């Protein structure tokens, strides 16, 4: 019997990655023109009463170390490029959480001349948390939903991998030997 090592290794590695990602997501927070309301609620989420750190989220200063970008505010024209840059600096896979009505639709600032309107127009968003500002509980709920979807995505990744290797030609000796050479 031949062992398909690529599938075994790949699957195990995927599982490990998903496990690590879900258990300690590091977040970065960028205010792209918010009124502060969402920002103080995000900070309140990290402080003892709500304590987001108990689900493993750590607020991180550098985009290069972060998995989740928490973004608040209607994107102003000044901060648009900066937001893109921060997003591009983050390593893959990366996820974006848009916090607050402004980040979703422009909120109260709709029609003001210096805003793009919503985070979606600049970078892709994974989770939207509505509210003006959302309560800390809502922010925790949003982050937990994101983490659950990550678990789901990890499973999808496994299934995809399993599907791919089931394709004809995928299991030949070349691909099998690669992990052994390493």
């Amino acid at each position, binding site marked *: 019997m031949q062992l398909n090592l690529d599938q075994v290794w790949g699957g195990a590695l995927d599982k490990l990655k998903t496990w690590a990602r879900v258990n300690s997501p590091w977040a970065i927070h960028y205010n792209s*023109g918010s009124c502060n*309301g969402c920002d103080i609620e995000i900070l309140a989420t990290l402080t003892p*009463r709500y304590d987001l750190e108990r689900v493993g989220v750590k607020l991180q200063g550098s985009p290069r170390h972060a998995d989740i970008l928490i973004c608040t505010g209607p994107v102003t024209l000044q901060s648009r490029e900066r937001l893109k840059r921060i997003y591009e600096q983050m390593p893959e896979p990366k996820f974006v959480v848009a916090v607050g009505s402004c980040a979703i639709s422009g909120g109260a600032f709709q029609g003001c001349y210096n805003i793009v309107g919503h985070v979606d127009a600049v970078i892709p968003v994974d989770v939207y948390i509505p509210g003006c500002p959302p309560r800390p509980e809502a922010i925790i709920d949003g982050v937990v939903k994101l983490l659950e979807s990550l678990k789901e995505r990890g499973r999808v990744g496994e299934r995809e991998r399993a599907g791919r290797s089931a394709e004809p030609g995928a299991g030949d000796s070349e691909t099998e030997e690669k992990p052994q050479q390493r």
Partner: protein
Amino acid sequence: MTEQVPNKFIVPIGPQHPALKEPGHFEFSVDGEIVTDASIRLGYVHRGVERGTEDRTWVQNLYLIERICGICSHIHATAYTLGVEKLAGLSAPPRAQAIRELFCELERIHSHLLWIGVAAHEAGFDALFMYSWRDRETVMDLLEELSGNRVHYSCNVLGGVKFDISDAQRDAILRGLDFLEQRTHHYLQVVTQDAAFVRRTRGVGVMTKEQAVEYGAVGPVARASGVERDVRVDAPYLAYEQFPVQMITDTAGDLEARFAVRVRELFESYRVIRAILDKLPAGELMAKMPRKIPPGEAIVRVEAPRGELFYFIKSNGGDKPERVKVRTPSICNFGSVARLTIGHQLADAPMILAGIDPCFSCNDRAVRIKRQDHIQSWTWSDLRRYALKKYSA
């Protein structure tokens, strides 16, 4: 002999940075550890609120203006309503004025506690950050109980307030204040006696009384330098005549004094809130407001948690304002930061910056810069040309 070019090393910070939660870009030129020059670039949060007010009706503007700043939203809305009421030639009933003042002081408590936490975080004193934010939840609960929202309370309407204060709420506020007062005594002790913390604040960022006047500092920053400047005392608005506050000043002018002034202001806020709850005037909550405001101009000065807040409102008789101009305290205080950091260690720069309690969403607005002899400003055609060039791609 060749000319020696001094080595200039610039440390850029921001706009996204771990310390502050709002975007602002700072460049500190350093010689070793010592800051030799500082420049600040603001404007990342400029949304165009002042122009936005001209497209909205008087009532809609209440909600836009509240969202100029999430920390001091009530004081913005209060200044705006006071101005509109002045234009309409009426004033809110006494009970409404007292409730507004109560909200102003509750907001000051939440803002100052927030600031103590953030400033302690800058100093690397995260225990104090967590403690003060934990205790701040008490006042957030009170605000939520009164208004239904933790941050933007929307307490004001044109001509009055939306909420009354019931007996149960009154008791809840008093209970909350008792707890906070006891904690605040502890904080006063920490910020003035904790040896490690005092070494980060005592004698750092000293601003003399003359400098404070010259840089145009306002609010607790000015008061910590001995400048007696508090709109609540100088020109009482709302019910501050009936329920007066005492001005808290300090003479040291350093960071420690700024901490002490803000913490001692908390006691003053507790006292005033108790006085208001004790003698809350009876009566109506709202006065009848016309939909269209008669033409005219009004100026309002109020004391936000960070200092003097100034509103200019112009009406042309329609259902929308013709012009609303806001001048917020943060932008007045920013001038001092660039000057005060020079000569200090780079590690002190975030502390000095946090010392003025900067609020970027308040201060990012178009201003005319006046240097000694020339005024630097943009005309409409300049702006248009600039915009076409910048956003043509």
